[in-house]
Structures are given as C-alpha cells and as structure tokens.
C-alpha cells in the first residue's frame, strides 16, 4: 500500500490544521465504516491495461526517479487543547468535562505524585527494594484512563499507574502491598515493586520485559472483537520499547487482523539514558503508524484534555470500526528511570527543571481549575495535607504487615501443583526446620 508517499502528501496538506490531526489515509472504506472485508480485493487482470497489476501495492506508475524524503524536520504536528498556562486555545476542542471529573483527574495526578515521593524515599531508606516514579507523565495516565470504559482492558509497561489510581480509591493499598510484597499483595509477593495487576480494573499484571505486552494486547483485542464485547484494549509502552520486534509485530497484527486496540506510546525523551536521537531516526512513533495502515496521532502528553480527547475519539472509532489507533503522547520523564538510576549522569539539571517548572501536566490542569473557579490555594493546601496523610496511612499499614508464607514460592507455576514441585516444597520445609535460623522467617507469615 502506498504508505510514505501518501503520508508525505497528507502531512503537507495538514500543516496548520485546526481540527484534530488524525492522519486520514486515502483508502476506500476507511472513513467511519465498519471494515469487514479484506483491505485488498482481487484485482481484475487485464493485459491490455497499462496499470500496475502487482498484488503487493495499490499504486500508480511513475517515470521519474525520486526517493521519498523522510519528513523529520517538521514532523507530525502535536495536538493540544490547553497552552502551557492551562488556557484553552480553541474553545471547540474543550471537552467541557464536568467539575467533578476534572477534580478527579487533578486529585489522581497529585495523589500519584505524593505516593511517588514517599515510595521513592522509602526505597532510599531501604524499606522497599526498588521503585519507579511517574513524575511529569501523570497527564498521559489519567487523561487516557478517563476516556475509557470500566470494562476496557489495559496492558501497561510500568509507568502508567496513574490510570489505576484514577479508577479506584482502594488503589493505594494495592500499590503499597505490591511494593512491600506483603500478605495483602494480590501478586503474592512474586515480583519487584511497581509490577501491579488488578483483575477488577482489568489491568493486566505488569512484566519487566519491554514491549511483550504489545502483541498480547492485540490478541486480547481480537478476542474482544469476536466476543462482541464492546471493549477496547489499550496498550501502553514507551518510545524505547517501540524499538522492540514485539512492537512491530503488534502493529502489523493489529492492522491486518482489524483489532479494536489503542496503542498509546509515552514518548518521554529517554529510555533510561538513551535519548530519542539514539532510539530512532524517523519522526518518532506516530510516523510509523501509517506504515502499518494504522490511524495515528501525536498529542501533547502534558495536556490532560488533549490526551483525553484523542483517547476518547480513538476508543469510539476503534470499537465501531474494528481498527487500531496509535496515539503518541509527547511528554518528559522528569524523574530518574528508577531508583537504580541517577539521570544527572546523562542530562542537565536545567533541562529537567524546565519541564518541572514550565510544562507540567499537574500545573497546567491546576491553572485551568483556578481559571474556572473550581479550585483555590486553600483547597490546594488542604488536599496536599490530606493526600499525604492517605498515603502515609497506607504506607505504614503496608509496612507493618508480614510477608506471605514461603509456601507461596511454589504455587501458581501451573494451575495444579505437579508432584515434582510438591517434593521440592517439602524439601524446603524440611531444610527450614533444621536451618531456619539463617532465614528471615520472622518477617513471613507462618
């Protein structure tokens, strides 16, 4: 299919577009219609016709030798609703969310921010083994989460916990339990901190290998389509993970198999220490979408309303038309990659400060709230105090609880425990009877 040429043509036309910069590929049947037929029809063979007959591309001949220039100087434009001061730029793009919803967005982001600070510190103090903060990217989490239905399925990478925060108040307990690996951890203490999962919220448990969730999300979307479930699957990943083969696999499968899925890329500028200039040479991730036949958009990830609008529209169409959508949310990773990283080794403090002070999703939404008269300094102070208290309570509770019984080391490998594994479990139990004093049994449930 004519990818690059059509895309280049469309980019030139779309500069200065006032509407959402959704790239519309000029393909028959692509607009607003449920596509149940295979994209390419069998072409009529006619040897008298001088048109191309190749099964592999639907294109015209050209007799001028010309390489397509990848358009990276001025790439796909970035859709936004608010400016950096939280003012709506184009009133027709204002989603006009009700006050409660906007407050919920704001409180989720700030609660997450507070939890991040406390848990980061707790790792530094040796209370938990590891942590990853979400500083600067909170807008991508809650903006997208707010646009989804309760039954939609979420596959994340590891820096999307704000979505889970947005969807429930019991979340703090869930997060703390997992980070501490205590008896309340739904994951039964098996994984490193921040590898959350929640069946109720349809948030599939995080795994460390990057991008593996991408083709999985596509399969889940295919199953949802077959089940007529009216469900979308959203799949989050970073711009670094998008380099993995699994990302290519996922995009291609989603397009060829016509799956109702939203690919949500958080482009935060760094993959640990690797800047985007060393991650890719093309125009980011959004530009890859058309290459697969995927509707694509680039948004300002620090603008909660832009993220919300794009996700909402993508969701509506993905389910209605059974096709994938790619949203590249541009943002910045203000914090270190994790507690094992010190980013001053590869970037300047000035750069980080700029984003923290001048273009932060929380500040921008707060400006919006203030301008609407829905928030003020008093409430801000009270909420900071309250959110800190909430987090500290959950934190102290989680810290006091014991760890799960060591027998849980052996279960859930299979649905049923095989005899061989039971033997090994018994062997550990016997070992602990003799050598138990050398093991931290006091911290574990009996």
């Amino acid at each position, binding site marked *: 299919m004519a990818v690059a040429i059509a895309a280049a043509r469309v980019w030139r036309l779309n500069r200065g577009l006032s509407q959402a910069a959704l790239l519309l590929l000029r393909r028959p049947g692509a607009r607003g219609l449920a596509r149940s037929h295979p994209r390419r029809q069998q072409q009529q063979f006619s040897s008298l016709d001088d048109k191309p007959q190749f099964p592999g591309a639907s294109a015209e001949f050209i007799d001028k030798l010309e390489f397509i220039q990848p358009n990276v100087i001025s790439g796909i434009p970035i859709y936004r609703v608010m400016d950096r001061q939280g003012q709506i730029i184009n009133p027709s793009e204002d989603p006009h969310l009700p006050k409660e919803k906007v407050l919920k967005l704001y409180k989720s982001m700030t609660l997450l921010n507070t939890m991040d600070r406390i848990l980061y510190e707790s790792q530094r103090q040796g209370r938990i083994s590891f942590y990853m903060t979400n500083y600067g990217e909170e807008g991508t989490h809650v903006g997208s989460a707010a646009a989804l239905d309760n039954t939609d399925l979420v596959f994340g990478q590891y820096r999307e916990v704000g979505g889970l925060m947005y969807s429930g108040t019991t979340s703090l307990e869930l997060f703390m339990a997992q980070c501490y690996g205590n008896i309340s951890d739904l994951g039964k203490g098996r994984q490193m901190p921040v590898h959350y999962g929640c069946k109720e919220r349809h948030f*599939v448990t995080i*795994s460390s290998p990057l991008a593996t969730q991408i*083709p999985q999300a596509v*399969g889940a979307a*295919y199953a949802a389509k077959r089940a007529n479930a009216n469900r979308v699957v959203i799949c989050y990943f970073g711009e670094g993970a998008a380099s993995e083969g*699994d990302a290519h696999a996922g995009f291609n499968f989603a397009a060829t198999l016509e799956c109702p899925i939203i690919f949500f890329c958080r482009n935060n500028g760094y993959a640990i220490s690797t800047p985007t200039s060393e991650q890719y040479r093309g125009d980011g991730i959004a530009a890859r979408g058309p290459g697969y036949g995927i509707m694509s958009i680039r948004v300002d990830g620090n603008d909660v309303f832009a993220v919300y609008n794009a996700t909402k529209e993508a969701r509506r169409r993905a389910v209605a038309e059974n096709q994938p959508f790619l949203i590249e949310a541009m943002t910045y990773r203000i914090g270190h990659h994790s507690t094992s990283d010190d980013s001053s080794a590869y970037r300047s403090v000035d750069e980080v400060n700029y984003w923290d002070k001048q273009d932060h999703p929380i500040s921008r939404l707060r400006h919006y709230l203030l301008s609407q008269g829905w928030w003020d300094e008093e409430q801000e102070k009270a909420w900071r105090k309250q959110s800190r208290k909430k987090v500290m309570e959950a934190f102290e509770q989680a810290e006091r609880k014991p760890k799960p019984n060591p027998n849980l080391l052996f279960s859930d*490998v299979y649905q049923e425990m*095989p005899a061989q594994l039971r033997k090994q479990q018994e062997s550990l139990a016997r070992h602990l009877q003799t050598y138990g004093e050398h093991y931290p049994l006091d911290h574990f449930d009996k």
Partner: protein
Amino acid sequence: MAVVAAAAGWLLRLRAAGAEGHWRRLPGAGLARGFLHPAATVEDAAQRRQVAHFTFQPDPEPREYGQTQKMNLFQSVTSALDNSLAKDPTAVIFGEDVAFGGVFRCTVGLRDKYGKDRVFNTPLCEQGIVGFGIGIAVTGATAIAEIQFADYIFPAFDQIVNEAAKYRYRSGDLFNCGSLTIRSPWGCVGHGALYHSQSPEAFFAHCPGIKVVIPRSPFQAKGLLLSCIEDKNPCIFFEPKILYRAAAEEVPIEPYNIPLSQAEVIQEGSDVTLVAWGTQVSKVASRKEKIFFLTSGFSFLFQSVIKTGRLLISHEAPLTGGFASEISSTVQEECFLNLEAPISRVCGYDTPFPHIFEPFYIPDKWKCYDALRKMINY
C-alpha cells in the same frame, strides 16, 4: 525440576538372556520386529534416496471411544482441531498459511467449516503469533497457534519463556494464559537439514510453567492434542512431521482425551527399560500398550528401572543438554543402587542437523541395538 515435560514415549522392558545370540530368538520383542525391516536394496547402479529408517507399527483399533476411521497423523490433528472448534465457540486457530490448510495440511477444511474469523493467517512473525495467542488466552478464549516448523520457534522464545510460562505465577493467579496451545512440526524428516529437522524440546523442558507434549502416533496425537487444548496451562505440542503421512491407524472420530500426566507400559519385560518419544518410539515399536513418559510419571519409570537395572534413553536432539540427560540424572538419584550398567543415551550428535549426512546423524535402531548390547553385556 524446573519443568513438567509431557512426552508420549514408551517404556520397553525386554526379556533378554544377556548373550548376544539370544537376541535374535526373542519372540514378540519389538527389537526383533524392528530388525525384520530390510534396508532398501539398490537394484540399479544409480543412487537412490534412503527410505525412512523405520516402519511405523499401527496400534490395534481402539474400541472404547466409538467409531474409528483410518487417519494419518496430520488427519488426526485436523480431527482434533475440528472437534475443538466444534465444542468451544471461543477457539481460534492461527499462524502462517493455516487458512488454505497449512503446509502440512493439518488445517484443511477448517476455515470453510468454521469461518475466517476462527481459522486465519497471521503475518510472518513467530513472536507475534505467540504474543497474540497469549493475549487471546488472557481473555479466556482458546488460542491454538501454529509455528510452521519447530526450527522457527526461537523468535517466540521470549514470549513463551518470559511471558506465557510465567503469566499465572507472576500475577499471583490474577491472570493466566492457560488456554493457549502452540502446535509445531518437529523432528527429522529425511531431508530437512538444519532448519526443518530440529527437536527443541529440551529448551522448553527447562522452563517452569509450560507443558511440552510429543505424540508418537495418530491415535496419541489426537488424544494428547485435545488434552493440551483443554489443559489449563500453556502447552507446546510438537508433531513429528515424518509421521504426518508415514503413520496411519484407526483413530476415533469423536473427541477423546489422553491424560498428559500418566505412564503406560508398551511391553513388559525384565531386563532393560527403554525410553523414547515421538518418532524414536517407532524405531522399536511394539504392539502392546503405550507409554506416556512424564516427569510426574517418573515414579513409574523408577519402578521399571528398579526392576530391570538398565536404562536406555533415545532422542534425535543433540546429546549434550538433551532431555535424556535430565531423565538420566533423576534416575541415577533415585535408583543408583539398582543400576546394573551406566544409563545409556542414544541421541543425535552435538552438531547442527545435517542434510546429506542425515542417515549417519540420526540415532537409528542399529545404534540403539548396539547400546543395548553393550548394556546387557556390561
């Protein structure tokens, strides 16, 4: 342990008098039957390609599962898939070229019968196929993925080992992909060379959380495949491709299950225990009962070795790190004092699978015979 590996193989206990001469006179010994198969005679001066190095011995018609039909291995696979799609509306089959019927004809007719949303081609991408299959299974639907040759399963190794195998454990049983089955043609085929002959079961046997199953016959294949599909854990089902056409026997038309965790004796004996799986079983197939050898069937294997004192394990895969080493190691732990001779492994050499040298590479019946002889005379 680290793994539950289910392999359909066989334990053969031979009655042997210890001296070589007695071998030839043993009635009913599968070994003798195997030797009756003549080598291809060359009539003319021109070289002919070697015929198959074994003869498949069909099992007697199974009576307990209703009406049967003569099926070869690929037909028995089709029958299992047909049964699965008929009774499980969520089940889907996908992979490269499955839509037209598959390169080994295992999915012939299924797309027409069940629809293109249930039997469909994917792009050429094994990591995608398995990842996609995991995702389907996570929602609870049944995913039957095909990897065109086991030799090409490696791009999907990460998805299988790091994801599928660990899904239930790492999520504390919140999520799982138990309804995923991966099918793939496996083993030597006479001319497959490096990339159409591999037996990679050992790589997966080392991974806790998945099951690896290898049938030895059409009847086994259908029953085991149905069990894999219904099993609540992700399974890899390796199909010995040389048997797709070469093995034919009466197979029930209706669905039936052969349990994945069970052992059976193929032939009773008292002097040697022989273990193999897949095509190797046909090297010395017997008409008696079949055996599924599983790690949970280890206790059965121990009983056998305690009785015979001698164990020979054979597989096509290379010797070093092959699954025979796991069996050997476990048996010597449990049956050390009962062993009359070192455990013998008759396997492929530690080389990639060659093309023109295949007849020399494979652990054929002569190598098994020689190893047995040495073991008996130890």
